[in-house]
């Protein structure tokens, strides 16, 4: 597979995952702020500040926004196309990458991505003011499900699929680690573990939790579930398992060299998780484990880039201008 194409597929899946993850987060953030903190004025501290820490860079956020609240966080993470961490920016990038590899993607997949990328444009400020952010997030989440479903039905399990798995599960694992790291400390300190609804982010996931342990939401249970349960699709362990499998498949297909460094790193990361599971699960330890996992996930992404994408150079400035001038008579 072309290095450029592999890179575009990886980035595309990464951005789609990010958009869906952010939509879940915003959706539950709004629900939580309304339900638990509408009256006590603690929504910023209890919901929106942590959400900024999970989804973006708090320092960068506060450079342009006075405080984290429903309006500023929704704008920044949903619609601000200038903010590279927003849903709109992620979907725009995803569409551009999908377009650059259109020949590789089944038409239905392209169409689903194209449709999702058009969604933010259907939400002018007036509509957001009228209907709120919740329906937007719901539509984005559904678009994410549709894309995943169409991919599942239409794509061959070939290199393209595996590179997309790499991008998707790296982002998912990273996102979940950040949520756990940010939420565990504060939730442990809280008498009600209610804020754990946020990391799970969706009733389906919440129901899955109940099936597993049948207990109420407790910070330790939830953080263990999110970090360690290999059967939960949004857990770090599940993401790591899928990453490892995708790297092995790519090596088997001859798309990357045998025994790639990314595989060694991914295996070590799973070992790190297993080791953490057997040790103390105090907030400080979980926080430290989260830090190490985030660093390790960065190393895996770098190793994949070094071995697979090195040949895919960024387009030099002026290239697009030349491309647009090519006569197609």
């Amino acid at each position: 597979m072309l290095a450029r194409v592999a890179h575009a597929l990886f980035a595309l899946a990464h951005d789609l995952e990010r958009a869906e993850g952010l939509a879940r987060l915003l959706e539950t953030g709004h629900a939580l702020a309304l339900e638990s903190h509408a009256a006590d004025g603690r929504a910023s501290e209890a919901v929106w500040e942590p959400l900024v820490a999970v989804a973006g860079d708090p320092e960068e956020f506060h450079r342009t926004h006075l405080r984290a609240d429903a309006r500023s966080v929704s704008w920044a993470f949903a619609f601000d196309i200038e903010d590279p961490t927003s849903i709109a920016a992620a979907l725009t990038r995803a569409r551009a990458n999908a377009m650059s590899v259109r020949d590789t993607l089944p038409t239905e997949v392209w169409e689903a991505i194209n449709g999702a990328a058009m969604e933010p444009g259907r939400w002018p400020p007036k509509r957001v003011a009228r209907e709120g952010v919740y329906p937007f997030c719901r539509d984005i989440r559904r678009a994410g499900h549709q894309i995943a479903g169409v991919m599942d039905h239409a794509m061959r399990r070939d290199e393209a699929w595996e590179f997309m798995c790499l991008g998707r599960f790296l982002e998912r694992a990273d996102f979940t680690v950040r949520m756990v790291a940010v939420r565990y400390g504060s939730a442990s300190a809280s008498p009600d573990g209610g804020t754990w609804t946020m990391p799970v982010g969706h009733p389906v996931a919440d129901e899955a939790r109940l099936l597993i342990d049948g207990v109420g939401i407790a910070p330790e249970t939830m953080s263990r579930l999110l970090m360690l349960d290999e059967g939960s699709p949004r857990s770090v362990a599940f993401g790591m398992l899928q990453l490892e499998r995708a790297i092995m498949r790519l090596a088997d297909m001859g798309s990357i060299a045998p025994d790639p460094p990314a595989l060694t790193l991914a295996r070590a990361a799973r070992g790190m998780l297993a080791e953490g599971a057997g040790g103390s699960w105090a907030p400080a330890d979980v926080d430290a484990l989260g830090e190490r996992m985030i660093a390790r996930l960065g190393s895996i992404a770098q190793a994949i880039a070094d071995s697979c994408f090195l040949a895919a150079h960024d387009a030099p400035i002026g290239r697009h201008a030349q491309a647009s001038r090519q006569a197609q008579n």
Partner: protein
Amino acid sequence: MSLFTGYRVDGFFDETFEADGVPRGGYRRLLDGLGRIAPDAFAERSAAVGRAYLSQGITYSHGGTEHAFPFDLLPRLIPADEWAVLERGLAQRVKALDRTLADIYGPGRAVADGVIPNSLVVTCAGYVRQMMGVEPPGGRWIHMSGIDLVRDGQGVWRVLEDNLRSPSGLSYVVQNRAFMRRAFPEAFTDQSVSPVGHAPRMLLSALRGAAPEGRTTPRVVVLTPGPANAAYYEHAFLAQQMGIPLVEGRDLMVRERRVYLRTTAGRERVDVIYRRVDDSFLDPASLRADSMLGVPGLMQCCRDGSVAVCNAIGTGVADDKALYAYVPDLIRYHLGEEPILAQVPTYLPERQDEREHVLANMSDLVVKAVDGAGGVGILIGPHSTPDERRDFARRVIENPRGYIAQETISLSRAPVLLDGRFRARHVDLRPFVLYGDGEPMVVPGGLTRVALREGSLVVNSSQGGGSKDTWVVGEGSGHAPVAAPADEDLEVATSAATPPDPVAAAGGAPAERYAEAI
């Protein structure tokens, strides 16, 4: 109210109607089928297709914005017997042009024998000096061409221009048919329509046939300038349909005089490049140094014959609009045959007497830049203002080699659904000729392009044009026959003899009845 309420032929050759309210033979069944659909329902189907084109990204890019390519649901029909003549004429023309290129970059016999002037050849914008003495694999220069045809006021098909560099539109031929099947299945009832879905496979076959000798399972790629290009959708579609990689210049590299793909697992040799990048951008080492779209060293590989570039570098010389005037003579010279297809009477301002004629009759002629494309650099005399004519006259005087002039042709019209009812609009036809290691193959029908704006003469998508599906149907439909070229037209096209009276040549009809496709 019928969708055709108020539709008038208005003295033009209409593709669908012989006279007001009288459909041509092949269209009767089609219009019967249409009559069974409520007008609102048909308009809704049409709108749904427009939405589907946008959501599926079947677009072209213009001014940095993507637009859906407008598609009209009423197909254009060409009877099989009429098509058979066009097919032969197109194959003949492309064969002759291919030999012309081999001769220009090879022995130069046509120049030596006085068929074409050397000064014309070497001053063509598409002439690539570095290709002199190069013989592409299999000796083939033109693998894919789009020959623009128009029908004049008498219904006679004429070649308007040859597109031999990166002709676009084949993807729309395939997609339009797919949408027709879904949106207007009733139209196919009792019709025998030649399929077009195999066009990408025909192209792949032609490209494989261009592979360097000894490469039995050649690796073929589509080289695109990238998503910023107006025709990117087509590049991606064709690559997908052919099952071959869509690559950009940065995905390719040259090592030891061979072209390779940069893959995640290392290098993979490339044998055939179907390029949609201009000649001068293909190799920054040999051609345009500031190109960011090409592959350094590619020219050397072409010279060595280790890779086939399709169409070959330098083919632009044969679609120079000035060379167009010589094509009938080149057909006679290289093939020893009379041209099957007529073309539009053309004047070369480079010749003193023809220049005077052009300058004196600008309001009746169409003046084109010889290296123009996409409807740019053109003056349509009957629709021009005095200022525009003065501007073009100045340009012609300053650079007579840079322009040609042609008689204005009364383009045929066809019904196009606009704002809920059919209105007559001018159309042209771009058939695609694919030429591999056998005889030239013509994709049945081709792309009918439509000038959507009322009174507009421009059919290019980049200028607001749309398209129609084109059906080659199994029986006659009452169309005018494909006339053999009138001798006087060919004389005008290639000689400096007394130019004909343009008004007489156009049949003496009012200027506004004349149109020109670009």
